[in-house]
């Protein structure tokens, strides 16, 4: 896994420790004292790096190659995933996956925004940026969940809805609006999890949940730091500054009530321990579903409406 820029010192130290271990075992020289020292330093370096991540570093972690994608998470947490394709109107959009699955035996409907795990898959999945047909597919799956009274779980991970000519021609704005509207009408438990990048309207279109959860290193923003920097400083390279200003990390969002729960990730991000981080996410899904199970159909709808009614910071005059 390629290290992120700010992780290079850690990787360098790890390499030196490995070298020393190899040398020690091949030369019969006792290096245990030196090794212990270096291991201690490595531990400290890790803590210093990962406990004081800047917002821009979080963005990089959220987008890190190798970070578990929606399909990875689906594979680890759910069983019997049956993917369903197509929007019944125009086409199939691989940037959004969806279907039926089971969570500890309970049937659920899943919708996930899917980035590629390599260049080839990224092209096929349009880097997780949906066209209108992707949102239409999501809406059809929402209807299905609603009809059969199945909980809906959405996994959010997109740089945003695709800003292309064809997407605009086919009504990108309308489909996002309709998808949001659809989610305001669902009389089922809906849990949305921001697993990586929550990019603006394209993310919100599938994130109007009774509960909105977020992985510790995921981000959720009204605009990408690069676009924000391009507007404000005329320079996308100022993205780090923009990321700070936008307050887009899990903890920031929790503060504003935009997310209900932050799911811890292993040090260095979910990609360092995909199994462990999936377990945490599974636990969170199960206990939130358990709580929502207490609510009847009307209460599910009303409490979702109340949740979003409260969002916003302003002053009464």
């Amino acid at each position: 896994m390629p290290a992120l820029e700010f992780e290079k010192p850690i990787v360098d130290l790890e390499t030196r420790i490995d070298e020393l271990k190899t040398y020690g075992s091949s030369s019969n020289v006792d290096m245990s004292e030196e090794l212990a020292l270096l291991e201690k330093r490595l531990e400290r370096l890790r803590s210093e790096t990962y406990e004081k991540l800047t917002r821009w570093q979080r963005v990089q972690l959220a987008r890190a190659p190798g970070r578990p994608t929606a399909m990875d998470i689906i594979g680890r947490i759910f069983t019997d995933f049956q993917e369903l394709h197509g929007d019944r109107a125009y086409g199939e959009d691989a940037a959004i996956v969806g279907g039926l699955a089971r969570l500890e035996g309970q049937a659920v409907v899943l919708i996930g925004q899917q980035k590629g795990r390599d260049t080839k898959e990224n092209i096929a999945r349009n880097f997780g940026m949906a066209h209108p047909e992707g949102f239409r597919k999501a809406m059809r799956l929402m209807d299905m969940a609603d009809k059969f009274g199945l909980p809906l779980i959405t996994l959010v991970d997109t740089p945003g809805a695709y800003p292309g000519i064809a997407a605009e021609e086919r009504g990108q704005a309308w489909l996002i609006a309709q998808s949001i509207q659809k989610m305001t009408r669902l009389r089922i438990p809906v849990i949305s999890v921001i697993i990586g990048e929550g990019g603006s309207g394209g993310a919100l279109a599938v994130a109007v949940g009774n509960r909105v959860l977020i992985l510790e290193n995921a981000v959720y923003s009204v605009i990408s730091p690069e676009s924000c920097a391009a507007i404000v400083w005329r320079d996308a390279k100022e993205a780090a500054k923009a990321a700070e200003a936008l307050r887009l990390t899990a903890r920031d969002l929790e503060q504003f009530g935009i997310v209900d729960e932050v799911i811890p990730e292993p040090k260095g991000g979910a990609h360092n321990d995909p199994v462990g981080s999936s377990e945490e996410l599974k636990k969170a899904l199960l206990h939130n579903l358990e709580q929502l199970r207490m609510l009847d159909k009307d209460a599910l709808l009303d409490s979702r409406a109340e949740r979003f009614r409260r969002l916003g910071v302003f002053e009464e005059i």
Partner: protein
Amino acid sequence: MTLERFFRRRPPQQKENTVNDDLPDLWSKCPKCNAQVYNKELEQNLRVCPKCGYHHRIPVKRRVEGLLDAGTFQVTSGRVKAKDPLEFVDTDTYVAKLERARKKTGRESAVYAGRGSLAGLPVVVCVMDFEFAGGSMGSTEGEEITRAIELATKEDRAMILVTASGGARMMEGALSLMQMAKTTFALEQLANKGLPYITVLADPTTGGVAASFAAIGDIVIGEPDALIGFAGQRVIEQTVRQSLPDGFQRSEFYEKKGFIDMVVDRRHHRETLANLIAALRNQPKPEVTALEIKVPEPPRTGIFGRRK
């Protein structure tokens, strides 16, 4: 993103449409047909160019005046004001930007709303003001729009929402984004009471505003030549690395693509909206006097052919 560019531009530029310095307010030059137009005539014409039909931006108060029955409008917005939850600073503080927008418009947000009657029909009208921070939607705007919709729901009024906005306001981060969902929930309550919701998309209606309440009117009306869409044109050009076709993302374009019910000249909004609302509520056809248009209408250049 037009709104941020607009935001940065301070102090406001000199009026470009001034004919000469001695007589600054008598005429304007139409940016589309270059005709010199009497400002007074332009105002009477709801700021539609009498020569070519170009729709200038119109102050929100004037728009409401042109729409509703005289003397019936009661403002209900203006009871909330913006804070700076992110302590947002870029080239300037958000607080300073807000202050300038307030000074410029005399209002606390980009939303102007209230109750009134349209050809005798009870309505709530909510208008977004591009003059206030490019009409961008932050928490305050979302709250004002939500309250306006709740008012219509409570008082059994039809809801008219006129949009003019670059989208969600960057300076309030994801809180702005949440307003898209908040307003949509309110619209569900309105719909549950069977009350009409009509949107009028003015120039520009883009980003998070286009992708939420603007797009989901029972009837969606576009103003002629208004820029509408999710992504900004510069972003699209950079993404697809080609220049955009003429008329792309304009009202007429979306009418042709099937996303807008009709493109209606601002001078016809009053009777169009009155007739639509009355029909949706199954009430008698209203007596409504259209704005007196003293000059011939412009040739229609929409997709349904040119008529001269």
